[in-house]
């Protein structure tokens, strides 16, 4: 009985902190075994590489918190980059291009929110429709090619958003920190956040308490669209071009990272902090695999296994909550 209790508490500890432990083990091992991993320049490169995914995943966490999912994030990331580049080629000023593009992301997010919150379309279907529309607009604007963003078009300011530094810190990383802190406060410390968790946790109870489910879901999807458009702008600034396929990988990666974060802080519930850790694990894994020269095909397999682990970790409650399964 005593041994069983000890084993049970160890098991609970590992269950609660397993993902965080995995992150520590992976990072420590890479630091020890891969000399190039521990260089300051690699650390800076890593900050650039994970920033956009952090932003997209943070937005997706908000959607998860209301019990829905969003598979249009990658398409909105791609479209935002192409749209901003398209506008600048048409001599729209960079600032104006940024504002219009963010507005576009918000509109697409609102479209998701209306379909899912008001018209009761299943989230997988609704956000899939949005992703197809975004893809179509994307190809209409760029005809399938990337649109180059030169210094002459955009000035130093725009490109520095994706590749520059402020006080030695990569600018995209600063954006990632600001956005995640704001969303963390929104979700954990405000009434809006409580309502979001309530809607995601128990719809009937939320209705009983007078929460407007439709408005809450609409807000969640608007936030996700906003985050995806910001990430798309930063990505296009980093690449120096609006790429029609630049955001493709973000959809699944953001879902995986958000799932990893589920249950890290509260059983069955998404959490911005957990999501960040999920992004970090993925980013560090990929960075290390690259430095090891591991083949792309093997990286895909391992990413798939990682997603499997994320799903296994999330638990039934989280999976049903997000209505992915």
């Amino acid at each position: 009985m005593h041994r069983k209790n000890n084993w049970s508490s160890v098991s609970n500890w590992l269950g609660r902190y397993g993902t965080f432990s995995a992150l520590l083990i992976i990072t420590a091992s890479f630091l020890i075994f891969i000399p190039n991993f521990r260089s300051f320049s690699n650390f800076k490169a890593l900050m650039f590489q994970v920033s956009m995914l952090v932003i997209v995943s943070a937005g997706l966490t908000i959607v998860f918190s209301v019990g829905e999912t969003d598979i249009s994030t990658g398409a909105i990331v791609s479209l935002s980059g192409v749209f901003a580049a398209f506008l600048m080629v048409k001599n729209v000023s960079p600032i104006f291009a940024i504002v219009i593009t963010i507005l576009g992301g918000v509109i697409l997010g609102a479209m998701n929110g209306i379909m899912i919150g008001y018209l009761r379309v299943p989230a997988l279907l609704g956000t899939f429709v949005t992703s197809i529309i975004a893809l179509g607009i994307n190809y209409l604007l760029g005809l399938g090619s990337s649109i180059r963003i030169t210094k002459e078009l955009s000035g130093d300011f725009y490109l520095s958003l994706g590749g520059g530094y402020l006080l030695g810190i990569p600018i995209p990383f600063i954006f990632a920190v600001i956005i995640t802190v704001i969303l963390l406060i929104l979700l954990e410390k405000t009434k809006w956040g409580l309502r979001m968790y309530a809607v995601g946790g128990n719809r009937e109870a939320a209705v009983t308490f007078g929460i407007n489910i439709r408005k809450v879901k609409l807000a969640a999807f608007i936030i996700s669209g906003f985050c995806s458009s910001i990430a798309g702008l930063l990505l296009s600034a980093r690449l120096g071009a609006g790429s029609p396929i630049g955001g493709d990988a973000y959809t699944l990666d953001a879902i995986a990272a958000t799932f990893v974060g589920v249950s890290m802080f509260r059983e069955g519930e998404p959490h911005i902090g957990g999501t960040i850790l999920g992004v970090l694990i993925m980013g560090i894994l990929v960075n290390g695999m690259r430095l090891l020269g591991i083949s792309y095909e093997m990286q895909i397999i391992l990413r798939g296994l990682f997603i499997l682990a994320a799903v296994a970790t999330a638990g039934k409650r989280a999976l049903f909550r997000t209505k992915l399964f």
Partner: protein
Amino acid sequence: MKKYLSILIVVALFVTFLSACKPAVVTTTEPEKTEEVKAKAYTIGVSAQLVAHDWSIRAWEGIQEEAAKHGITVIQLSAGQDPDKQLADIESLIEQKVDGIIVLLAETAVLDQAIQKTTAAGIPVVFVDGGYKAAGVIQNISSDNCQFGEAAAEYIVQQKGEDAKVILQTYPVLEATNLRSECAKAYWAEKYPNVTILEELPILGPEWTADAQAHAEQMMTKYPDIDAFGVCSDLFGIGSSAAVDAANMSDQIMITGVDGLEQIIEKIADPKSSMSLTFLQDSKAMGSAAIVTMKTYLDAGCTIPMTDACKNIVPEAQFIPGIMVTKENAAQYVK
């Protein structure tokens, strides 16, 4: 239990990497017995957009074999067509302090930031199958893709007449494939203005073959009098020719492509197939040439920025000739 499983999976994966992973690194302990072996061992990074079709696989083989002859270590990273990933791959190669980088296919529009980084790091770049001019790129190696487009345009006119009706299947994402289509159009506009381009469609993938097939089927329904499909890549040709042949329209419609895939050459050799022309690109020679160029440049003690003394060490561009394969000579190229 599930959480145990996840931890175990992650740790197991990771231990597997460190102990048993096979990185895509080619090293040679001893160079082959050749007089050209130099004492210094270089490490060259290869950033590939994708290594998943014949062309790029042959290019990679050329790189590996030539590197092995010279005792050069090669680190290959493939981006799966993701430009963000390709930029991160190049950053990783810079981090590993390679002596040179070969970019094997890339969308030139997204290369600016990557080449800025390699230039800042003083690492010379050779670009295979694209045209990208920048201070840090010491050479572009490719086939003459414009010449392929013009030759295909001329061949269609020779076979179908000066008032041929043509459908173009394009891939504007890559410089090489874009040049083929654009040069064909410009050639017709200048020399044969009565050639009619009925439609031009970008096939953006990733299901290139299936999409090209579906497109061809739709076009045959829409335009009963098509004379030819001009496709910028043999991957499209596989799909389009399947559609045309299945519709028993190979007597009416011919298809021209580029790349020289084995499957396409076999089709060209088949008198019943609509596939009529391709250009066999020697991508293996391109890969070899990239290593030779890089070695020549580095052996001369050159780096980036390129000094005046280094400007003439290697030419800015190198064209590797392709072979025009038609129904008349396809049999000799069938393997």
